[in-house]
């Protein structure tokens, strides 16, 4: 067995990740580690593979080759179908994900959106799950919306509920896939605030984003991806103010000169 308490085991370890759709190589041999509590932003032009890399971490888009490890457990283990499904369903409980389009369940009210998975997968009683939903909603500042259906919420509120839903599973890491890209500009801030709060609580986060200001102010590390490779990475002040690579400079010129 692998000793998960060993400190030299990286929290998240991506080894030689590669993925292609037919002839198109979306990810080309990416290796990357993330420490517990670290907040990593992935930036880059569309089609650079940043979302694919994020979605490989929880097996939504399985890699063609390479390995993904979380706390000494290989997520993309090669297993017979049934065992693989069981394994993946188990590890996904530890990996929260927030999507661009929220993906709240429209036929369930906010409470049921949050309590569904803890009740089904962790065997929480209705009372315990409801209490959990109240806590998580208070956390994102939406306590009064507990009985409301998603269709009655604004985009920013929907995304905050989606974050609360993911947090209710007590994940070890949170993945954000362009969480604010579908929002009206005036609603972006409320979601950013919730994410900042999570950062202060030392949640490990990997954030695919187009918002350079947010990446600069919240993240410990920034990865710039282009054409399936990590072109450059470093602390935000280095990447944003002093990038070495020409491609990074070009990209940032377009995105910072607004």
């Amino acid at each position, binding site marked *: 067995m692998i000793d998960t308490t060993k400190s030299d085991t990286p929290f998240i370890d991506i080894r030689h990740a590669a993925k292609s759709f037919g002839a198109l190589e979306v990810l080309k041999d990416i290796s990357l580690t993330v420490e517990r509590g670290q907040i990593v932003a992935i930036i880059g032009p569309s089609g650079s593979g940043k979302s694919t890399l994020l979605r490989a971490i929880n097996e939504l888009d399985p890699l063609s080759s390479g390995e993904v490890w979380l706390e000494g457990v290989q997520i993309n283990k090669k297993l017979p179908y049934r065992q693989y499904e069981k394994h993946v369903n188990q590890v*996904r409980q530890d990996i929260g994900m927030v999507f661009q389009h929220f993906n709240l369940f*429209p036929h369930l009210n906010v409470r049921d959106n949050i309590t569904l998975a803890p009740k089904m997968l962790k065997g929480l009683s209705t009372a315990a799950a409801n209490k959990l939903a109240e806590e998580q909603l208070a956390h994102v500042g939406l306590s009064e919306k507990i009985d409301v259906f998603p269709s009655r919420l604004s985009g920013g509120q929907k995304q905050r509920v989606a974050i609360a839903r993911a947090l209710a599973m007590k994940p070890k890491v949170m993945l954000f896939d362009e969480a604010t890209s579908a929002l009206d500009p005036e609603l972006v801030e409320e979601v950013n605030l919730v994410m900042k709060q999570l950062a202060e609580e030392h949640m490990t986060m990997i954030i695919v984003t187009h918002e350079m200001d947010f990446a600069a102010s919240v993240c410990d590390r920034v990865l710039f991806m282009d054409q399936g490779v990590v072109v450059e990475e470093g602390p935000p002040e280095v990447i944003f103010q002093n990038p070495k690579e020409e491609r990074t400079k070009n990209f940032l010129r377009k995105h910072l000169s607004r």
Partner: protein
Amino acid sequence: MGLDFTVVPEYFGILFLGMGWTIAITIGAGLLSFFGGIVFAVIALYGHWVIRLPFRLLAWLFMGTPLLLQLFLIYFGLIEVGIDLPAFIAGVIGLGLHFAVYNSELIQASILAVDKGQYEGARTLGLSRGQTLRRIVIPQAVRAVIPPMGNNMIALLKDSALVSVIGVAELTLAAQQAISRTYRPFEFYIAAAACYYVINLCLEAGLRRLERRIAASR
């Protein structure tokens, strides 16, 4: 000879009994077509081909041939292989499976119409494929499918008249029995039509209520 509706009240008993059977068949076949439709749709979309193929053939049989023939086959034909069903049961099975196939087509379309993000949202929380289907995809598909499926139920009610030919004493057969005693076809067929209309009104009112309740929860 003029029309004389005064003979009708004397046969209310027979007609009401017939109405009762019509309602019973419609409910029985309706439930079978609803749950059968869900099962067929899930098999068609997610089943292994070994199971999917025979169901595909069954679906083709039920969609491609007349309902009347299917009823004959189930009631008279199955006796030859040792399955002797009571007429009522044969009628419920025949009508129910026939409409289950149509409902299955509607359900398949509405399941495929559920946004892929719903599936991903559920799976990333750790729900299995089956759990995602049961708790997330199917409930949404069912909501979308209720209005068109309601139309199928109304068609089912009207087609239930066909089971009169295998001897179920439902409304149409009850009217015929009254006619054979009174020689008053026009009056009794009109009376039966009125009865169908009343059941239909109730069914439609029920469906509208259901649709409103679903609309409220979205």
